[in-house]
Structures are given as structure tokens and as C-alpha cells.
């Protein structure tokens, strides 16, 4: 690698939700992989252009898509994903990436979504907070050891498009998917203390930055 090459930059969408938790999980992943890189908050359209990969954190998806100041960044994110930039959405982040979302109780919502991920989301699919749960998941792409899924008012994937690979299921509900450069999880890998999912994502960002260099 030439000394001029810029180091890897992973962005975390910084509007609302568990932003800092994703920053620290990504830093841990970089450290464990011994990759020289930095993690930045992304809040303005011009920030989106500067990152080699973007994480959309958990939180409340209605909020993350509501304000005009936020909506200005969404088309740029959409464009960069189409260009191949790796993106990972956890919980609310996966909802933001999906094509369509409806609520289990209230039905279709008026949310503005980014829409690159060819799935339909059922929001609050497992129920309200008292139904939030932890469960071990088997995720082939992360190896044999079970991954602790932390599901908080979690969505589930009710329909998947033909290019979408199901990477985790729980009792016949699809809870994690991958479509080329896009990863979506219904659970919160940033809260499980297990950085394998973030490491997987960092590796995708490394490949992308090499290709685009």
C-alpha cells in the first residue's frame, strides 16, 4: 500500500439512536482486525461521500427519516449504495434500507425509506418492549459459534427479493439478510459484545475501498 493512500473511514449515521454504541463496536472490530481506520459520524450529505462504508444504527426509524435536514442526506446515501458502498443497518437501520415497511398493529406507515434493500419489513414484529428478547442465533457467515441476538422492539423481514440472501432466521422469521453490499439485521450486533458482525462489515468496506482506489 502506498503511503499516500488514505486510511479506511467507516461512517455511522448520526441522527438518532445508538450511534455511539456502533462507533465503539466498529472501533473494536478495527482493532481486532488490526486495520488502521477511523470511525466518523455522518449527518450531512457531503459526509456521505467521504466514507468507505456506512452503518445505520438502531433507534426509532420514524424519527430517523422524519426531518427535512435528515431527508437531504437520504438520496446521497441511496446513490452511494447503488455505487457499491457497503452499508449495514441494524434494527431501525434495516427498516430505513428496506423497500417497504408496515407496522404489525398500525399497518402501512408514511415513513420515507432509502429503499435499496429488496425486502418488506414488518415493524414491531415480536411485540412491544416487554416482548423484547435475547436469543442465540446461528449465522453461517460468522462461523459455528452462536451469535447473541439482542432484539429490542425488533422488526422482522416478511418478504425477500430474489437477490437477497437470508443469513439468519429465528423460528421461521427472517432476522438478518444480505444483498451484495447491504447487510440488514433485525437485532443489535452493536450491543451483544461480539464484534463478528462489525468485523464482517469492516472487511466489506476494506474490499470496497481497495476497488475504488
Amino acid at each position, binding site marked *: 500500500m502506498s503511503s499516500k493512500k488514505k486510511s479506511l473511514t467507516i461512517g455511522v449515521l*448520526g*441522527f*438518532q*439512536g*445508538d*450511534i*455511539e*454504541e456502533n462507533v*465503539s*463496536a466498529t472501533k473494536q472490530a478495527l482493532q481486532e482486525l488490526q486495520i488502521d481506520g477511523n470511525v466518523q459520524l455522518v*449527518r450531512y450529505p457531503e459526509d456521505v461521500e467521504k466514507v468507505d462504508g456506512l452503518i445505520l444504527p*438502531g*433507534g*426509532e426509524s*420514524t*424519527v430517523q427519516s*422524519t*426531518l427535512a*435536514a*435528515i431527508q437531504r442526506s437520504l438520496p446521497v446515501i441511496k446513490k452511494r449504495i447503488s455505487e457499491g458502498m457497503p452499508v449495514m443497518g441494524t*434494527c*431501525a437501520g434495516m427498516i430505513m434500507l428496506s423497500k417497504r415497511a408496515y*407496522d404489525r*398493529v*398500525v399497518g402501512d*406507515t408514511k415513513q420515507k425509506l432509502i429503499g435499496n434493500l429488496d425486502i418488506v419489513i414488518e*415493524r*414491531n414484529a415480536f411485540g*412491544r*418492549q*416487554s*416482548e*423484547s*428478547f*435475547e*436469543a*442465540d442465533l446461528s449465522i453461517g457467515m460468522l462461523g459455528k459459534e452462536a451469535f447473541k441476538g*439482542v432484539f*429490542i*422492539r425488533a422488526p422482522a423481514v416478511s418478504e425477500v427479493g430474489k437477490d437477497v440472501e437470508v443469513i439468519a432466521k*429465528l*423460528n*421461521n422469521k427472517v432476522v438478518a439478510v444480505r444483498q451484495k453490499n447491504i447487510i440488514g439485521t433485525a437485532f*443489535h450486533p*452493536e*450491543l451483544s*459484545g461480539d464484534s463478528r458482525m462489525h468485523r464482517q462489515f469492516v472487511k466489506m468496506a476494506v474490499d470496497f475501498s481497495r476497488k475504488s482506489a
Partner: protein
Amino acid sequence: MTISLVATEPKPKGVKIDMVENAQMVRGTTLLKRGFAHMQKHGVVMDVTNVEQAVIAEEAGAVAVMVLDKLPYDVRKAGGVARTASIKVIQEIMDAVTIPIMAKCRIGHTDEAHVLEVVGVDMVDESEVLTPADEERHIWKWDFTTPFVNGARNLGEALRRIEEGCAMIRTKGEPGTGNVAEAVAHIRLVNSEVRKIRSIYQDSDKQELMKAARELKVSYAMVEETARLGRLPVVNFAAGGITTPADAALLMNLGCDGVFVGSGIFKSEDPAQRARAVVLATTFYDDAKIVMEAQKMVDEKKSLLGMDTKNLELRMQERGQHA
């Protein structure tokens, strides 16, 4: 771990383990309760008393709504005993919006809290805005599967509430006054108390840390963890008296993780617009240009007039302070 699990009871009653088909699903853990609060970060929780207000709040970008019978300003005016909201109203709101629903119960009123848990609210607020049911003891929150938020005016109160099992702290202001001064005073106090134990921790002075634990009336482990983190071990929102977008930005810049707005929105004359403006200022609190945009969205002539907090007959913030 990205979330501190400090003070978790060894076998809390609120943790439920179910086998569903082939999966073991564990509910009510500290990680799930505090994790829920973490999902609220950088957001605005809005007090509402009916479906119409809840819908306005959701459309404006509230991260959750807090259901209560009367807004704090009206509680103050009405006098009498303030209790948890009507179950019917809470249920109507749960059916109308997709964002989380919180509801208040009285301090120490374990059974109001049980009722709210059965109704299915996402978080219970054991709140000083309502008339306390027990001045000596707060609810033992480890017995619940549903997470709790509690108010606190200083570090000792905050850490004691966390030891009782609460998953989120609200730094108390003086509710219903439209005056942000008390909220500012208390977040500053908590910050300076945290700084003090942090510096003791950095000096590795365990004896002094033990002394601090005794003064704060909490365990050594709790003080050590707070000192190590350099902040409260759970999510901390500001509350009480927030009226304008700039008020919200002020508290975010003091290090709060988000804000609660009570009377400030629905006691103003421009609630829908103001709600959006407060969300905008909370999201972009460190960008003065956007806070200005937000401030421009509201009309000061339509703000809750507010009151001086020095000569109040009822100081809600002092409720439950000795427990």
C-alpha cells in the same frame, strides 16, 4: 460491551425465560432494558394526554410519547392528587402510533406500575410529577420485565435509582414551569460530581472512592463503574422546563443523551411546529445554524409563558429525594 450492566441483581424476578419452538428467548434482562433506553438517545420524548397529541408528536419526530392524565403545568394548577393516566387513554394511544409509549406512575406505587406493565407500555416513568405514594421507598424495579425511567437531581439520587433497577435517568428540572434553569442546575451538578469521582478513580485512590460511595449512599461497585465510565452508567435525558428549540440544544450541549418535553409543547400555541423544531434542535444541537433554523420555526409570543421557579408552592423535584 457497549452497555454497562453494573448493579444487576443476581436473579432478578423480571427476567423471563421462554422456549418458543426451537429457540430459548430471554426477556427483561438488564441489557434489554438499558438497551431500550439507548435506542431513545438523541431523541425527544413528548408528554401527551390524548390520541391527537400523540399523533402530532409522532409526525413531528418524537422518539416516544409519555402518557399522563394532565400536563405538569395543569397538575400544578389543579392541585389535588395526581395519579397514573386512564388505562383507556393509554390503550387508545398504543393503538394509534408506532413509536414507544411510556406512562407515569406514582413514586413507590408498585401496583400502578404492575398495571402499566400488564397494559404493555414500553417504559414506566416513576415520576415526581405525580403525587408520591411512598416517600420512603421507590419501586424495586428489578421485579419488572418492563424498563423504568426515574428522575434525579444529583449523582446520589441517580445511582440509587439505578441500584433499584431503573434503566434510564431523567435529570429533574421543575416540571410545568417553562423555566429550564432547574434542569440546567441539576445536569451541571451531576456532571461536576461525576468529574470529582472520575479524578479520584484516575488517581487509583480506592479509599477515597469508598468514602464517596458512603456519601452517595450506594455500593462501591456502582461508584467505581461510574467513575471509570466518566458518566452515568445508563442513558441520561434532561427534563423539566424545556420550552424552546434552543433550550433543548442547551441541555444536549451539557452532555444529556436526549430530552423530555412536558408542558413546553402542548401548552404552547404552536404545538405541531414547535414539536418539529425541538426535534430538529435536539438532533443538530451542536450546529448553531440549524438550531437557529429550528428557533425560527417557533414564535416566542406563542411559548408557554412560564413562571419563576424560586417562589413555587409545589417543588416537584424535591419529591422522593430522601429515599
